[in-house]
Every structure is written in C-alpha cells, then in structure tokens.
C-alpha cells in the first residue's frame, strides 16, 4: 500500500481530544480506501479546498435511497477513493447496541468497505463511509440477511430518530423508543423509495429538553408533554435546600411564568399558570415530577438555513395521546404528506411551503382547528382572507345575538 507523507494532518494527532486522523490511519493500515482517504485529506489541508464530487445515482436494487454516491476529482492520484460511497444503516431506537451486533456490523464493513464509520450521522443513521459501486449489492445482502436494513437519503422520509426516552430517562412523557420503531416500520416504503418533493424528517423527544433537537431540525417534531400538574415531594425539596441549593434564586426567580413560591418552607406551584418548561423539574429531579395525562405536542416545519433561512418547528397540535398502535398520529402524518404533495414545488421543505401558502391553508388541509396554543401572538396586520363560510359564521353569530339579546364574541 502507498505510504503518504502527511505533515499537516499529523498535527491533528496531537492533543488530548480523540483524533479522527488516528482513526483514519487505523483503518488505513489494512484498507486501501481508508489509506488513500488519508492522503486525499492531507491534499485538502495543503490546498485548502475539498475534492469530493456530487453523487449521481448509486444504490441497491429496488431502493431509491440509503446509499450516497461519492467520487473524488483526484481518482488518478488516489485510486482507492475514486469511488467512496456512503452506506446508511438504519440505527436502533436510542442508539442502544450489543457488542455482538456491532462486531457483526464491523466484520461486514471491513470485508467490503473502508473500515471507517460515523457513529452516527446527524439524521441518526449508522453511517458507513466509503465503498465501491460493485460492492453495494453484496453489502446489502450481508446486512439485510442479518436483520439490518438501509436507512434513508434523497427526497424521502429520512430515517426517524428519537431520544433515549423510557430506556433511561425519568422525564419522558411517552415511549419514544417504541414510537420511533413503530413509525419506521409503518413507513418503510416512504423511507426507501424517495417519493416526496424533498426530504422529510421526523424526530421524537420525550420532553421539552428535546435531546434530539427536534424543534430545530425535524420537519415533524414530536415533543413529549403533559396536561396535569407537577407532583411535589416536600421532604426532597428541603433536602435540596439543605444541600446548598438557593431555591429562591435558582428555581423561584428563574421560573418563566413566575408560578412558583417558596415561603415558610412550603414549595408551591400554581399549575394552571405553569408552561411546563421543565426548568424546576430538571434542577430538582428527586422532588418534582410531571403527573396526570401524558402525551406530545406536534410541531411542523423546522430546517437549516438553505434555501430561504432557518425555521423552528411551529405548534400545530398542542396535545395528542401517544399510545400504540399510534393510529391517530399515523393518520395525521399521511394527511400532512398529502397536503405537502399537493402544494410543494421540487426541493421545497414543508415549512417553506407553509410559509408560502399560509398556515391556514395547511391547518385546513390536515383538518386542524385554530387554537391560541398554535401562536406566539396574533397577526399585527389587517390583511386577512374572509371566505364565504367565515362570513356566514360571523353573520349567524350576530343573528343569534339579536335573538338572545346577548353578545357572544
């Protein structure tokens, strides 16, 4: 194998943080593709420019996604990375693994790929970096016969992803791991065969801490919440105070709705005014916990800045029960896709389409009523649409007022 002189990237093997260059060299010891990737990267560092080319169409028979084609402009100089495609393997819910399962993944990848991985990619997939076109069918046969399927790429439902949920968290309001598995199984076709205008991401977080950043990077964000109160263990509150927590400064004063009081050693919450932001619960986890009806808030539309600026997801359904077999949620997802299909231009994310067509059009399209929880504030302008139905409803209300002699706003 060719030995590359790599003075620049060698610098990145120094220092305490684990080094990706060391990882590339480890894989490059007995793998030509990884070895050439090391030389290729050194060249980028010398010239301050990247040399990877657009993908083109590569994949496995019957699927439209799951493999991302990647070629180098410098194939003659670094033949090992002339093709260097990415294989996305659908990860497990919550990224839990056993060593035997991962050893099997590694064995297959060493045999047919570069020996390099991302654990994990940003969407969630277990990302295997670098293989050649003619190895793809073999890789797929090896993985799928052992129970592993490809993830997603292109204009498809991207591999759904979730937080650790009930596996290891006391704050989760629904079973994120199970919902993630159920939705992934339900929408296999939409995951593997790109059929949308652009990508669609679903991310599931069990509470407002949002450990998978669903509010910022999922076209559909499913964030756990509850409708009841916060249960208080007064003895544990006292223990926190005894152990040095300044409850007034750290909890009462930092409550965004000012619904907590702590006088005479009794910790009180005005639950009606609580917005369930989770601050007090995360600081006093032994003393406080959510109680009552559990479920999730459904938000829609977040994305990174390309093309017309970044979006955070907007609340569309303030509360939904999240219980198997998740029929209501699956129906809602299908309705959302149908509206998006009807209204989007190519490469338009759903948030962008909602901005263009208006939230009213979207909410009507999916059969959701207006409710104050959907907005931060009402509009500032008087430029509204009035439909014939709207006017008929206003007139009917006025007719009723005349009859009863009582105003109804």
């Amino acid at each position: 194998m060719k030995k590359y002189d790599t003075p620049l990237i060698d610098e990145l093997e120094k220092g305490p943080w684990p080094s990706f260059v060391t990882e590339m060299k480890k894989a490059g010891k007995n793998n030509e593709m990884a070895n050439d990737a090391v030389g290729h990267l050194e060249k980028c560092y010398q010239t301050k420019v990247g040399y990877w080319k657009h993908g083109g169409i590569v994949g496995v028979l019957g699927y439209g996604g799951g493999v991302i084609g990647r070629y180098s402009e410098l194939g003659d100089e670094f033949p090992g990375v002339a093709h260097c495609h990415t294989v996305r393997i659908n990860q497990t819910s919550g990224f839990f693994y056993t060593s035997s399962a991962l050893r099997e993944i590694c064995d297959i990848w060493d045999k047919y790929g570069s020996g390099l991985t991302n654990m994990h990619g940003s969407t969630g997939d277990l990302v295997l970096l670098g293989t050649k076109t003619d190895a793809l069918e073999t890789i797929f046969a090896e993985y799928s016969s052992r129970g592993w399927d490809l993830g997603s790429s292109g204009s498809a439902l991207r591999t759904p992803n979730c937080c650790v949920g009930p596996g290891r968290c006391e704050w989760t309001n629904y079973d994120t791991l199970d919902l993630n598995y159920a939705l992934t199984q339900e929408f296999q076709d939409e995951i593997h065969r790109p059929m949308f205008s652009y990508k669609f991401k679903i991310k599931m977080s069990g509470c407002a801490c949002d450990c998978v950043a669903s509010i910022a990077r999922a076209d559909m964000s499913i964030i756990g919440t509850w409708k009841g109160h916060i249960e208080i263990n007064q003895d544990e509150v006292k223990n926190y105070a005894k152990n040095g927590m300044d409850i007034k400064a750290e909890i009462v004063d930092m409550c965004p709705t000012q619904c907590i009081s702590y006088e005479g050693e009794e910790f009180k919450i005005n639950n009606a005014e609580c917005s369930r932001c989770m601050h007090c619960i995360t600081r006093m986890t032994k003393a406080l916990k959510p109680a009552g009806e559990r479920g999730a808030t459904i938000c829609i539309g977040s994305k990174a800045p390309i093309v017309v600026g970044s979006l955070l997801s907007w609340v569309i359904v303030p509360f939904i029960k999240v219980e198997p077999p998740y029929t209501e949620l699956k129906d809602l997802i299908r309705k959302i896709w149908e509206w998006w299909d009807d209204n989007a231009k190519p490469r338009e994310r759903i948030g962008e389409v909602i901005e263009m067509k208006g939230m009213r059009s979207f909410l009507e399209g999916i059969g959701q009523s207006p409710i104050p929880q959907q907005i931060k504030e009402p509009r500032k302008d008087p430029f509204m649409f009035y439909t014939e139905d709207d006017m008929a409803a206003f007139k009917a209300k006025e007719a009723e007022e005349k009859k009863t002699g009582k105003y109804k706003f």
Partner: protein
Amino acid sequence: MALPQRKTDIGPPHYKQFLPPVIQKNYGKWKYHEVLSHGVMVHVGESGDKLWTVRVASPRLLSTATIREHCDVAEKFCGGFFRYTTRNNVEFLVSDEKQLEPLKKDLTARGFKMGGIGAAITNVVHTQGWVHCHSACTDASGLVKSMMDELMEYFESKTLPNKVRLAVACCVNMCGAVHCSDIAVVAVHTKVPHVKHELFKNMCELPTVIGSCPTRAISPDPANKSVKINAEKCMYCGNCFTVCPPISIKDPERDGVAILVGGKINSLRSNPKFSKLVIPYISNEPPRWPKAVAAIKHIVEVYAANARKHERVGEWIERIGWERFFSLTGIDFTFQCIDDFTFMRDTMRTSSTFKW
C-alpha cells in the same frame, strides 16, 4: 461462496434486544438521576435498581478497530451493552456498582476521555468537511479536534453556568442543523461562483438552477446556453452548486468560517433560539485554525465569567443585551451583523432604550 438471501423493508432490529437487563426491568420506571462527576451519572429506578452511565468522547469518525475496542470494554464491564449519544459520545452502561471503578480505570488506561455530562461542554455536533463532503468549505473534523483540545478542561471537569453546546458546519447547508447552538462555527464562501459554461448544458437543468437561488441572482444566458449570476444579489449560499456541479464556488483564498452564538433547542426557562452572527469571517487556517479556536475559547470564558448559574449563552446575552455582549467580548461589530436577508425587520431596534 454464495451470498445470503437479501431482504428488503425489514426496518431496523427491534431495540428491546439491545437493552441491558436493568433497563428491561426498569423500562419507563426511572425515578431520578444524579450527575456524580462530569463523566458519570446514575439513574435510580422506582424498584431501587441503579444504572451507572460512563460517558466517553469520540471523534465521531470511528474506525471499526475502535468500535471493536468499545465492544471489548462493554463485554468486560457491561455485559456487552452500550450506546452512542446524539452528540457522538459513547456511553457504557453499568448495573453492578463493583464494576464502576474498574471500568473507569480501564477506560483511562486505554486513553479514552470521560466527561461531557451536566454543566459542561460535551461532544461537538458536526458535518463531514473535507473528509467526505462535496460542498465543504472547511474541514469540520479538524476544527472540532482543534477546538476540543483547547476546551478539554470544560469537558472533563471545569464548571460552567450551564451546558455549552458547540457545533461546526462545513458549509451553510448545515447538515445536522447547527443553527441553534450556544456557539456555532459555520463555514462560508465569500465570492460569487464561477460558471463553467461549456459543461452547463450537459449537466444542469436551467429552471432548477434558476429556482435554486434564494435571492434571484441567477438568470438565463442564452448566448452560452447557460446562466449568468448577478454579483450584487448573490450571497454565496452554494445552493446553485448543489443542483448544478459546473457552477464552482470553492475558493481556497476566500473560503473561511463565521461564528454564531446564543442558540438553544430546549425550552427550559426560555424558548428555543437560533444562533446569531457575531464574527462574520475568519480565514481557513489548517491544520489548527488558531484564530477560530481562540475566538470560541474567548466567548466561552467571557460567558463563564459573567453569566448567572443556569443561564445558557443566549439567555445571558438577552439579559445583558447584544450591545453589552459586543463590549464585554471586544468583538468588532461589522455590517454583516446587521441582517440584510429575510428577517431584517424583526432584528432592528425600535426604541432608544439601549446601553452604552
């Protein structure tokens, strides 16, 4: 040797088979957890069972050799069970307290770094960069390595007012959406792309290319059977390049990074926020990006010295005001910090109640 029979649309393996027995038993019945150190936390079930988590840094780009080493450790101390986190840490899960100290000792001996839990800097969300991406204008992995070498003390122990989430995107496409981070590095092009007209007609679709431009800077160029770009409107986003390879935007002299601060994704105390631009341009300086690293460290240190306990970077800045953020950090305020894109009207000041 014959290949095994391929299967399609089976989805991932069921997660239950990968949960250690203590999780199977206490599934959905966790009572509370405590952070014991910056690398160790314990979750306590209603049953009284305990699960210790030891978190270890990873460079995200992992060789199968290192994954096998994770497997060795998990088999030795954790019954073979472990997990990865959304920020690319590795977590070893221990249900027998007697295994905890030997595990930590073993991890240290192998050179693994424990940390990243609680009011700390944990692993950095980032993109592929020069390692594997076609549109990268910097190397994300190299920047992360350089930053974290400098910030190691905040991963391993040093206490901050709250967690600080760092992120690196190797172009404005921001795969992995780093746009809501406490401090984000975003690589930027700064020059109008060059169109290779002779390749255009064979590789690109004219309406798609024109439609890809958010500022309508692209128009047809019939004489060349290609497109032309209006330099006054182009903001170098690179979206045209993504749909049409002959539009070349890479420039080794001019590509660099911008720094944005004050974003968050959780709803604790205040609502999720986007990160905002404070440093518009720093040159690419491989292999160590000294100026970008110094800027990040400086912002972390000013935050650590000035924020109140539990305040995230964005909450601290909102309390003191952006004019004070610039005076405290000494960062130059430039024209790029004033929005001239879609959201300008929401970002200008409409009162005289500012600070000097």
